[in-house]
């Protein structure tokens, strides 16, 4: 966390705060209807908590990723961000949706699946190349 405070400095903190405030503004506007429809206030805050905690985990975990692996890390997170696939399935397959909406979901699903497949495959392809010092492949080559 200190990492962040030092380096990003004003800019990111600033934009973070702006985004946060906008969100907060949106959330805190007096709800125009009862709590039943859509996400209730408390549930919305639970989602914000989940977001904040996951970000803290992310910062902690990514900071410790080996410098050797930053390129594969980029493609791994790329694959993970294709989690949008979940939303795409819901829209593409939801029984209540008319075709024109499901077409949007279909495109989104193709796009996400592409990311998942290519992201994981290329990450693994790169990681396979990292040979442990003194591993057999390496010794053989040194022969």
């Amino acid at each position: 966390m200190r990492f962040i405070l030092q380096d990003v400095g004003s800019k990111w903190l600033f934009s973070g705060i702006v985004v946060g405030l906008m969100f907060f503004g949106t959330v805190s506007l007096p709800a125009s209807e009862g709590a039943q429809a859509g996400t209730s206030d408390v549930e919305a805050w639970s989602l914000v908590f989940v977001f904040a905690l996951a970000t803290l985990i992310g910062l902690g975990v990514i900071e410790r990723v080996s410098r050797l692996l930053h390129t594969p890390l980029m493609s791994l997170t790329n694959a993970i961000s294709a989690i949008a696939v979940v939303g795409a399935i819901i829209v593409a397959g939801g029984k209540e949706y008319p075709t024109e909406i499901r077409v949007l979901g279909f495109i989104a699903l193709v796009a996400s699946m592409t990311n998942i497949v290519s992201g994981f495959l290329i990450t693994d392809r790169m990681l396979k190349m990292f040979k442990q010092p003194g591993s057999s492949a390496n010794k053989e080559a040194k022969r």
Partner: protein
Amino acid sequence: MTHVVQLAYLVATVLFVFSLHAMNDPKSARNGVRAGVLAMAIAILATWLQPGIEHHFWILVAIVLGVAIGVPLSRVPLTAVPQRTAVSHAFGGLAAGLVGTAKFIWWTYHEPSQLTQFRMGAIVFEVLFGFLTFTGSLMAAGKLQEVKWIPQRPVTYRFQNVSNIGLLGLAFLLGLLLAIDPTRAGATIFFAAIIMLALAFGVLLIIPIGGADMPTVISILNAYAGLSAVAMGFVLDNKLLITAGALDGSSGLILSIIMCRAMNRSFTNVLFGAFGQVQAAQANGDQRHYKSETIEGAAQVLGQASSVVIIPGYGLAVAQAQHRVRELYDLLTKAGVTVKFAIHPVAGRMPGHMNVLLAEAEIPYGDLVEMDEINSDMPQCDVALVIGANDVVNPAARTDKSSPIFGMPIIDADKAKTVFAIKRSKNPGFAGIDNELYFQDRTFMLFGDAKAVVGELAKQLGNG
């Protein structure tokens, strides 16, 4: 069923965290990929098997199509990895934007009571970040791939930054108005305008940025893609989307911080600085005197050294010289010379670029040493062999306050007893400035393509 789905999402969340955690060591990293694949499979199955989901044929076709496009995309040469990543981000942004649009249309026309302010606000974020990432990443990929009709150089014009920010501000304003009253008259027009503005902003954001700054931009776009997934999670009330998106967002954030720090530049400077525009103007290396060395001479010095530090840079990647370097490494090691590689965090064109490249040639990663660690040993090093690196060994970063790279941490190649530098010409590197290292007494140039020169060095050493 809710419980099964939620449990599956929780398990997937934990697996994603584990997946990134496993990347802290090359030994466990492949387990990380496995955990990620497992998590994704669980997420997909849990979602698909929900009772509300039908139209399985559509889903199946989409998945097959995705696999059909994804597999070839994963086989690109390693030099094209930055472009591939950018294209992927574009896909990710597109998916988020489309899902947001679909939900907006559905709720507006079919279930307006469900379109709460909270959801509307989240949709606005999702669509903004999604479509901005879509066009922005496509532009970035184009610049990296050096597509003809996308200018490589930064394109600037008067009031550029002001008008860009104005555009974004307008989109935010429309979004705010929508969030205040999601079912207002003309909501669809507002929404369409937001999409247009986001698409335009994505393009305009990238135009003033030089091709070589793209890696940093790609990382920032990575963070945006993550944030759009988070917003989608808020829209769909889906915690897995939120956690995975947040992990992605923090990864993009941290990688861009690392790059900015290693270049001693700020985000603002990368995004709005139009860096690289003045490149040609500053270099005047031709007027100064270089000392050259022959291949034979250099091979002899290398063979007699007791410790050699190889400093690879972007040129090594361009020339694809990693396998030749491996030969050289083997020959020197066999001759009893200690060989280490000094890896600068932003050598090359993406974070960790040199590590993947050298790993490809099966050089054991124990011999790849980070900048901070190797610098203290540089004065004891007999020969520093600079292969296609330039800015990352430029001592001006330490000494010359007026240099654009002043303050950037560098590898102290200039402190080695002898320096050999391989490059093709007298042209400067990415930052477009002269490099004092090449003019110092103990430095000898080996002009030529990295692959050819290193190959000949190896041949000489092999024969001699």
